[in-house]
């Protein structure tokens, strides 16, 4: 049987969703039988490949690099899954939004609240540029599936991936649709 070309990415988030992914423990071994992990923070591939079957997107779209990547993901992926609350709602990553635009956020963080060497970091081409507002993934590209939780519990991730890799559309029970 063909193996599923799967990717995971980590945008503006804490990587907790990936930690939860790893919490699937021994089922990961089963999963590994069914997929090729073609791009992920867990593997060393620099360029998001073409023709990916499914991508788990952790984190919100917070900077220009996120924006670029997520658009590329959409163009090269058949099923995009918003993976965890930051991707689905913006969540903690978006807590900066009420502060205002990017410059206001940087001022607050690096000038107003700084006691030592207040300065706004600026390393063009090295540091990605913050977007004025953090946005959930579906506000930027169409999303095919939403996986809630901060982080989504390992069992919930499995409940989505297991049918998917077997060619079945996952139907999570309502109780597994809980945010937070």
């Amino acid at each position: 049987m063909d193996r599923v070309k799967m990717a995971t990415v980590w945008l503006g988030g804490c990587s907790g969703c990936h930690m939860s992914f790893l919490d699937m423990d021994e089922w990961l071994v089963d999963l590994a039988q069914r997929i090729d992990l073609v791009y992920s923070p867990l593997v060393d591939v620099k360029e998001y490949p073409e023709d990916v079957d499914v991508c788990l997107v952790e984190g919100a779209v917070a900077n220009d690099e996120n924006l670029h990547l997520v658009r590329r993901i959409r163009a090269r992926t058949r099923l995009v899954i918003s993976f965890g609350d930051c991707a689905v709602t913006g969540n903690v990553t978006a807590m900066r939004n009420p502060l205002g635009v990017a410059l206001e956020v940087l001022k607050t963080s690096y000038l107003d609240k700084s006691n030592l060497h207040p300065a706004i970091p600026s390393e063009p081409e090295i540091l990605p540029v913050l977007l004025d507002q953090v946005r959930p993934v579906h506000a930027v590209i169409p999303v095919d599936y939403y996986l809630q939780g901060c982080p989504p519990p390992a069992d919930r991730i499995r409940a989505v991936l297991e049918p998917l890799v077997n060619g079945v559309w996952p139907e999570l029970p309502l109780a597994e649709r809980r945010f937070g």
Partner: protein
Amino acid sequence: MELAELKELADKEKAEQKPIRIRCCTAAGCLSSNSQAVQQALTDAVTTAGLADRVEVLPVGCMRLCCEGPLVQVDPDGAMYGKVDPGQAASIVGTLQGGQTEARVIDTNMPFFRDQVSIVLENSGRINPERIEDYLSVGGYQALLHVLREMTPNQVVETMTRSGLRGRGGAGYPTGVKWGLIAKQPATQKFVICNADEGDPGAFMDRSVLESDPHRVLEGMAIAAYAIGASQGFVYVRGEYPLAIHRLEIALRQARKMGVLGTQIFESPFNFRIDIRIGAGAFVCGEETALIGSIEGKRGTPRPRPPYPTESGLWQAPTLINNVETLANVAPIITRGAEWYASIGTAKSKGTKVFALAGKVRNTGLVEVPMGITLRKIVEEMGGGSPGGSIKAVQTGGPSGGCIPASALDTPVDYESLTALGSIMGSGGMIVMDDATKMVDVAKFFMEFCMDESCGKCVPCRAGTVQMYRLLARIVEGEATAADVAQLEALCDLVRNTSLCGLGQSAPNPVLSTLRYFREEYNALLQPAPPAPPPSNQRIPLPVARG
């Protein structure tokens, strides 16, 4: 006082009038164009010309053609002058002695005046609104006296029902039926409220009536009170209308002094007191339950109906709420009879309607027309069409109404026809839009209005109008796609069907009507949408054969 005495008073008043009367409009519009100075100059000119014994200068209410203010009209020959400057006063007075005037002559035979049918506005611009004697001279308070002497409350209700009068505030509920519902309530305490919270931007009929003929409204309230068994009334008037408030206060004082309001009116057992409540700037207070809350000194948040105010209104007592224009129709219906009134208009919409004509139209001002007249006749013939280009749409009903396209201008004006077009009769604002008006901008303008005026109580209106406004802003900015329009339409459906009160329920109307008639203007602003992919769940099974 008996009818004969009242008529005698009226005759005496008439007899004291001088044979030549120069009427000068002192409603808010003309006042802002300095009509007070014009009036003073005319008075001085009359004195200077030595005509004071047979000419009088009279401050009157609205003479309707607001765009030509200040307006002056001379009786008995009826010559009318517009944009009168105080410097022209002497020459206008001079015409009475055969002189010429350079003042701008207004053709009173043009359709704007000729095609009007005056019931509500019959005294507007003819009498001094600050003198009850002027109102008496044209038969004022005779209907009230007649009702108290000759009719039972039931007969009054029945007359109103037969007249076919429907609420002029916008919804068009049959007035007599409403009165009957309240008359039947056993409660001892009932109230009459005159809704003068004319909140629709672009509507100024009620302001004009209150500034021009306040007693007519008070008389209507008193007749209503008698019919339903109320002894206390309130006029809830917009705080933005200081002149209307001022003239109402004068009218109330005079009416009390004359004994036509107060206790034992016309020596009958009927008591009726009216107080003024001044609004403080909240569109939602035009909604009757919000208005009641406001009179009770609370936040003007609507509450769900039922119970309707007819059962439980002000301080939980049965309460009649009628708008200014509705009440202004009452006395003439009593005087001239239900059949007379019902003979004007269409099968389902009787009588006349006052419209405030404004926007991109030559003649702006007030028109009172029989129901059933076409929109085209109002805006093109009476309004004189659009000065800058062709008419694109006519907006009626304010933020609760819709934009009627030029193609539908031959529609007769009645409650049902306007509703069928996706607008509403509304209170009477009629704003003409020409080719330069962008309809999506108009929808956004009204949505911003509704968003700002939402009381915030129910979620769909409070949060839904914000989202609709954002979507419209995105469309106007050229950032939106067809999916955004679809979402806008879904929100319209939600807000219309789930909002608590009329404000929310009607907030989508300007969007829906512009989408219905001007969708191509929306489409022209949209980003091209990428071709829709197949539905997500059809993109599995994932492992497709890859060679």
